[in-house]
């Protein structure tokens, strides 16, 4: 206390007034659109949804406080565990495969050769296409009757598969399509990282007698570990929040029965939440799902941040 007082006294009064009069006021004024947005649409809605998660709220009537009811119900709901597992399974397949592929592509497209711009553009095309378009393209490949995939398999004498309807295939196939759609984006981030590596490093490695593989493994990988870390975090969050793809490809139709794939095999957390809120009028329950999803993501991200000390280099 005493220390604080002395510190305050030590500060010249003029400086304080200046902060409030000019810079401070201007600063606040300039960021006020953001601040308002943040308070209303981020803090406000989060607080509201936290409150809803402790209430029975059907959207049409005011929420009724029910304490931990929704959370209790959630932890007893087999569909919650099913959707949690589906989400985790999607993430486990998606994040490592996509990160690795994006890095590989970035290294390949970081050469100084003719026509590279064209290839970079081609990889970026699916990124800017909407999921509806992607769904049509994917259907041409994975359609049970007319898709290339089964046509190819039948040439090899393998029986046709039900890809997006089959419980076993649905998540891997969705992951494959998701990777194809967005790998270009992560590749661009890696490209930026790669271009930040000074060519001196590679020259020095060459002088030391390193071959191409050693250069990649000993120079490139450690030098862009910061970028890799960012890509992994982004992909994990994306994977947990994936909704649009699954909604479009395995059940956006109004026929209630078709959402979430066969035996709910592609029912992910976001789809589960959406269905509770907008099809079943259970906004309170959906808010509880949202908060559990948030806590899971927070935990995963914190763990990743802890682990980064072991492998990420910044300099």
């Amino acid at each position, binding site marked *: 206390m005493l220390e604080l007082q002395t510190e305050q006294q030590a500060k010249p009064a003029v400086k304080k007034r200046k902060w409030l009069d000019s810079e401070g006021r201007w600063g606040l004024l300039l960021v006020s659109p953001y601040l308002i947005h943040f308070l209303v649409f981020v803090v406000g809605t989060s607080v509201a949804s936290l409150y809803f998660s402790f209430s029975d709220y059907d959207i*049409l009537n005011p929420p009724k406080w029910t304490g931990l009811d929704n959370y209790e119900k959630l932890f007893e709901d087999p569909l919650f565990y099913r959707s949690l597992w589906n989400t985790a399974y999607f993430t486990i397949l998606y994040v490592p495969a996509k990160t690795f592929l994006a890095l590989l592509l970035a290294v390949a497209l970081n050469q100084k050769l003719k026509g590279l711009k064209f290839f970079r553009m081609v990889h970026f095309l699916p990124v800017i296409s909407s999921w509806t378009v992607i769904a049509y393209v994917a259907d041409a490949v994975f359609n049970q009757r007319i898709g290339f995939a089964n046509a190819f398999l039948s040439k090899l004498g393998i029986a046709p598969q039900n890809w997006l309807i089959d419980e076993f295939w649905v998540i891997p196939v969705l992951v494959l399509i998701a990777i194809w759609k967005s790998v270009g984006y992560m590749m661009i981030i890696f490209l930026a990282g790669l271009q930040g590596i000074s060519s001196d490093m590679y020259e020095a490695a060459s002088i030391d007698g390193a071959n191409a593989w050693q250069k990649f493994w000993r120079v490139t990988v450690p030098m862009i570990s910061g970028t890799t870390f960012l890509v992994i975090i982004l992909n994990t969050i994306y994977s947990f929040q994936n909704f649009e793809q699954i909604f479009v490809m395995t059940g956006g139709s109004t026929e209630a029965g078709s959402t979430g794939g*066969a*035996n709910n095999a592609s029912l992910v957390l976001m789809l589960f939440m959406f269905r509770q809120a907008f099809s*079943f009028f259970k906004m309170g329950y959906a808010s509880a799902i949202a908060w559990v999803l948030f806590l899971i993501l927070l935990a995963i991200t914190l763990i990743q941040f802890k682990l980064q000390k072991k492998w990420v280099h910044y300099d």
Partner: protein
Amino acid sequence: MKKRRFLSVLGMIGLAAALLISGCSSQSSTQQGDKVELYMGYSSDPPTKKKMEEIIAKFEQSHPHIKIKTMTAPYDDFYQKLTTQIAAGNAPDLWQSDGTKVFGYAQRGAILDITDYVTKEISKEELNGLEFNKDSDGKYWGVPQGIQVGALFYNKDLFDKAGVPYPTADWTWDDLKAASVKLTLDANGKNADDPAFDKKSVKQYGFAFFGSSRGAFNILKAYGGGVLDPTLTKSIINSPENKKAVEWMVDGMQRKLFPNPADLKAFQSNFKAFLSGAVAMQIDIYAATTSMNGAGLNYDVAPMPKGPDGKRFAPVIANSWVINKKAEEQKVKAAKEWITYWTTSDEAQKEWTEVGEAIPVKKSVANSEMFLNPATKPENKKVFLDTLEFAGTIDTNAVFTEWVKVFTDNLAELFMDKYGTDEFITKTDQGIQKVLDDFFKKQ
């Protein structure tokens, strides 16, 4: 000092935010003299939107004291928007609700009980489908805007090619299956009767059913079973009648006479199988005629087949006008004027019939040459009107979407041979009862 300033700045931001929000949601409820602005919602696609606008213009001409402001969007978006609008308190005064959703809004207290108005001012003799929005307590929640009723659609070309006579009004579900055997063809053109028939490469199916109004529900009912009891709060899945019906369906799936959910999915949408001519018969509702005419199919309709005891059932969905419970008195009055206009004006009814979206609710128009016009397909439109005699709702209640989800998910498992009939019945019975109890026990 510093802290106080900061707080006042925060307060100002809060105030500004509040102003911003209230500014966004404030409705211009201009009422000069007796003029009422009625806010109306309906789901639409481009042709229905155009037609509705024309009808509204005509209404405004004959009712100069009412000005209609509209909110419209495609089906799914419309209901999402509507739900949030109701929550925010700025929903339309009057909206057109899908028949399956009326009780969902009614039992959650979002729409007005209009029993008085319906019994006093709407004539049951002149209007189709009024009873379908009456709940088990005898209260009316909506007035039909357009009627959807199910029938058996069949592709004449496929019947002709197979040399099978067209479905008749006397058909039972077993007759339908017998015809399906002849109408199901594999890649080599062999039908399901042929010992060489290859179940793995079916390219044409006899009959398809899926979803709620086009699905198994109708077959259960015809067999004397069903899903919910008359109070709509108890599952009656566990019955011998249902078991027989389910076995009938599974047998057809296993013999590949009917496409299973995976087979249907391969057509991109459940509807495409019949539309593309790969399925000879399908249960569908009147609204389907628009897309079938668009696809240039040579088809007609027959009444739904009978069950083993001669019982018949067809699904009906009465899309209805409902009034917001929170609407001001004056607007409720205007809304009723609109509903009266809609149900009694020949002009409005004929205009709406032209888009081919629904069976007219006004009986005189439905029975007129205008609707029954034999020059347009299906020729046998009278089937839809006759069907209304024995049609019923698909057990729509406040948790309809939720129990249908359990029902159709489990059916899909059954049809994909994940488990047998008995397990389906137990699992579905428990699942549906849980959904019902969750809602109705709280009431």
